[in-house]
């Protein structure tokens, strides 16, 4: 027999009351007043009489009644018919999600993470399915459910532990949202009732929670956060900012962003270039992020490191810097007219792309393979068209300006069509009727302040039919419905077809304020004019700075070399430092540093996860035990509710009370009689 509310059994102690009353009742009842106690001395009551219980049967009845009430209130029930939960209900899928981000490099954290993971592995039952994922910027599967099932039962925990021991923390940022959703997606494939994700992390406030908002968690998923207890230490980190495109060369200012963790107790730090003695003192309150202008880096060194000192943790105290190089962009222009001819188109084009300290534009008259962008307005010779098409197919972009019916063969040739009809449109002038602002070229104009193209008159424009076989997207149409600007995909390249020119005879486009940004976005979109980045964060893919040539040899900070095809992005940015890309005699340095968010090591509140809808379960084993107790209590309550033994006990107590009333009444009458006789 068990009790639902056993503490009510303490009520049985109330039987002491009747026992006491039966002992002292005699003394309490017989009391008399006397004129003076001056000549009286107290008589110690005789022990034998004091201990004598009066009306033993009455006392027993009263005690029994109280005991029945106490047991009744404790709600007893028989626990024999509890059915154990089915084996299916016991089966569960468990994903151990282990944080390997840079902030886990703090002393002792990784060992704690391993021990927590190991503890969970030890507790698994043969029916459990376990997967282990590590995550920093993205989740990676260390042990899959398939691996776990394939291993023998007695080896599972050992092998999983071995795999865990083989890895260590990296230098990446923390994309916690991605990791959680990635782990939850593993549950979509099966129908197991119990789905648990155990998140083993330091839960630093710099962790990104993207993707959690509105995420539909698989039914029954429960996330248990095992927060690794990190000693609260002052920590600050730094990140050198990418210089703006208009800046190049040594001697310019270097801006560095410094973050101080919100639980930090220090606010004075020093910045110093590696290898120099001069240092700069900065003040930053805890929890703040500020940008400082660093000291000038030492001249003559291509790559350097800026070091921060003054905090307790060292792993995030270095940011690397590479002096930006001048960028050369070659644009091939054909048939655009003379340089000084205002009636031609080149006159205006060269003014759209001025040279900047970071970018140098070179206009070419002949097509070269390294050209990034081309503007064609003339009719190409048939033998040139093949070369142009081959150039386009490599992923290049060209803008073809239709100047009249004679542009048809060039258009057909570049698009690989047998023929293309280009006709002159009639009418006084045309206006742009509809514009696709969703396309990247027009996206910058997608604002009511900039989206008015109706002031641009097109005195002449051409019509052409877009064959259905082409992968074409019309970006703008004239008001008569004919395409004005069309993007056509040519293998991996793109051809932009403009049905009118910007020379004054054709339109007012060149004198419009829309013209320079439109061509600039075209150049950027083509990939040729996009500014080359020299600062990257760990985990980023570095766009190849060398697009031509046979192969690019990449050298990581640790000396490891990797060879990739020219133009292929480099993705193994797993260590902060200076990376070197070289092809032949050309080389370029790229700085990779730790994401600044990894320096924000103050613990994040679990409420932040709960607010984003993460189905948080128990955060530690104690809570899990509490939940088991609660579950057991619910089962007990159900059983007790079914049996309702307390009703019988209350009835019995009432019966005993009735007996007590009868007996005490009888005894009272006896006492009265005795007194009357005496």
């Amino acid at each position, binding site marked *: 027999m068990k009790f639902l509310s056993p503490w009510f059994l303490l009520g049985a102690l109330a039987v002491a009351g009747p026992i006491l009353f039966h002992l002292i009742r005699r*003394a309490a009842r017989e009391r*008399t*007043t*006397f004129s*003076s106690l001056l*000549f009286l001395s107290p008589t110690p009551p005789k022990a034998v009489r004091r201990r004598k219980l009066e009306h033993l049967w009455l006392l027993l009845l009263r005690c029994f009644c109280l005991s029945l009430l106490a047991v009744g209130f404790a709600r007893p029930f028989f626990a024999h018919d509890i059915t154990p939960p089915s084996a299916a209900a016991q089966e569960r899928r468990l994903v151990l999600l282990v944080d390997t981000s840079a902030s886990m490099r703090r002393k002792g954290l990784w060992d704690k993470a391993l021990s927590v993971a190991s503890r969970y592995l030890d507790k698994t039952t043969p029916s459990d399915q376990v997967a282990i994922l590590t995550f920093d910027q993205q989740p990676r599967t260390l042990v899959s459910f398939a691996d776990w099932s394939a291993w023998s039962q007695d080896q599972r925990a050992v092998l999983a532990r071995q795999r865990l021991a083989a890895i260590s923390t990296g230098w990446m940022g923390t994309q916690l949202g991605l990791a959680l959703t990635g782990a939850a997606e593993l549950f979509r494939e099966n129908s197991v009732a119990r789905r648990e994700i155990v998140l083993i992390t330091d839960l630093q406030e710099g962790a990104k929670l993207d993707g959690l908002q509105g995420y539909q968690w698989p039914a029954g998923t429960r996330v248990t956060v095992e927060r690794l207890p990190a000693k609260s230490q002052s920590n600050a980190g730094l990140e050198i900012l990418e210089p703006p495109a208009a800046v190049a060369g040594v001697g310019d200012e270097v801006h560095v962003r410094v973050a101080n963790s919100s639980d930090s107790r220090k606010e004075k730090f020093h910045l110093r270039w590696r290898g120099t003695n001069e240092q700069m003192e900065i003040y930053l309150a805890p929890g703040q992020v500020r940008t400082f202008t660093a000291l000038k880096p030492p001249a003559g060194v291509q790559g350097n490191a800026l070091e921060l000192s003054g905090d307790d943790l060292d792993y995030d105290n270095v940011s690397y810097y590479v002096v930006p190089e001048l960028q050369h962009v070659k644009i091939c222009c054909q048939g655009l007219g003379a340089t000084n001819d205002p009636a031609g188109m080149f006159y205006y084009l060269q003014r759209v792309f001025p040279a900047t300290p970071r970018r140098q534009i070179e206009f070419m008259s002949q097509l070269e393979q390294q050209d990034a962008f081309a503007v064609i307005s003339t009719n190409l010779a048939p033998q040139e068209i093949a070369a142009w098409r081959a150039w386009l197919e490599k992923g290049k972009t060209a803008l073809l300006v239709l100047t009249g019916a004679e542009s048809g063969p060039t258009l057909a040739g570049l698009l690989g069509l047998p023929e293309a009809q280009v006709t002159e449109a009639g009418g006084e002038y045309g206006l742009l009727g509809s514009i696709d602002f969703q396309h990247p070229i027009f996206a910058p104009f997608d604002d009511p302040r900039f989206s008015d193209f109706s002031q641009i008159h097109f005195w002449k424009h051409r019509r052409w039919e877009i064959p259905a076989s082409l992968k074409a997207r019309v970006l703008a149409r004239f008001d008569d419905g004919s395409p004005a600007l069309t993007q056509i995909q040519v293998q991996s390249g793109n051809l932009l077809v403009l049905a009118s020119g910007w020379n004054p005879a054709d339109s007012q486009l060149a004198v419009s304020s829309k013209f320079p940004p439109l061509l600039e976005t075209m150049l950027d979109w083509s990939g040729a004019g996009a500014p080359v980045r020299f600062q990257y964060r760990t985990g980023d893919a570095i766009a190849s700075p060398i697009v031509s040539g046979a192969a690019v040899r990449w050298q990581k900070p640790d000396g490891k070399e990797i060879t990739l095809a020219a133009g292929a992005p480099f993705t193994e940015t797993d260590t902060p430092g200076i990376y070197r890309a070289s092809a032949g005699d050309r080389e370029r340095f790229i700085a990779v540093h730790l994401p600044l968010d990894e320096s924000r090591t103050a613990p994040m509140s679990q409420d932040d996860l709960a607010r984003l809808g993460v189905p948080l379960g128990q955060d530690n084993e104690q809570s899990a035990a509490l939940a088991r107790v609660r579950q057991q209590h619910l089962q007990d309550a159900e059983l007790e509710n079914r049996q309702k033994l307390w009703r019988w006990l209350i009835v019995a107590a009432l019966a005993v009370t009735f007996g007590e009333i009868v007996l005490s009444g009888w005894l009272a009458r006896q006492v009265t009689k005795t007194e009357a006789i005496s």
Partner: protein
Amino acid sequence: MPDVLPAKEAGFVDPKALMAIRNLELRARVIVEGFWSGLHRSPYHGFSVEFTEYRPYSQGEDTRYLDWRLYARSDRFYLKKFEDETNLRCYLLVDHSRSMSYRSLTYSKSDYARTFAATLAWFLNAQGDAVGLFSFDERVRDYLPARHRHGHLRQLMLALEREPAGRATNLTEPLRRVAELARKRGLIVMISDLLAPVGELESHLARLTAAGHELVVFQVLDPNELAFNFPAAMLFQDVESEKDLYIDPESVRASYQRRLREHGEGVEAVCRKLGFAFHRVLTDRPLDLTLHDFLRSRVRRGRMIRRRQQRVSK
């Protein structure tokens, strides 16, 4: 000092029936019937300030009361006649503490004491003596000076009718106060259960003697206070201090009676030493008998004084 006076004697009024009369004055009157003649001696024999009439002098009469001034004016002898009544000044000292409220009969010690005091007052007033009252517990509560006036007796009765309320009994303090207030010498009748420490009783009584007062002490006790007859052990609560004591009567009876007797003997010894009368009265004793005792003690005292005067004259 005689031992405890007999509880009941034939021919006297049954106290139980007497106490059934609610009016205190009426009770007193019933008892005083039959005791009309004054049996005591006046300390101021033949002297009074109350003038009644002139009477022509006859030869052979005492010339002390001749009014010589009148003779000078009228040349005739007249005797000046005074009313011979205010010859005793009596103070009743009645205990009003709560210990007096104890009863084992249908009436309490206080009922008995107050009735006795009223009886004395009525009796003395009727024979022309001045009567005053002190009621006390741990100090004097009510004080009425000794007078013989119309309405004074009524005031005295009203004061006596108050129920006892005092939380303690103190004998010495009221006696000191009486000595201060009763300047003229007279008779002091103290009616109390005397259930209090004797302490400096003797010195205060001596002060009364020095002031020329006479004292008669009546110790009023309930019969059960003497017998201590309770059926079983129980909690005894002091009616004044409300303290509880668990007492087995059988085991303490002998010691209680001994200590009570010793206490009474202590007071009595003091009284005898100072020449005062001491009576222990149980509440079941008829009141007229008690009054009789009082008068008899007065007579005995008168004889004692006469014998003392004769010895002095010899």
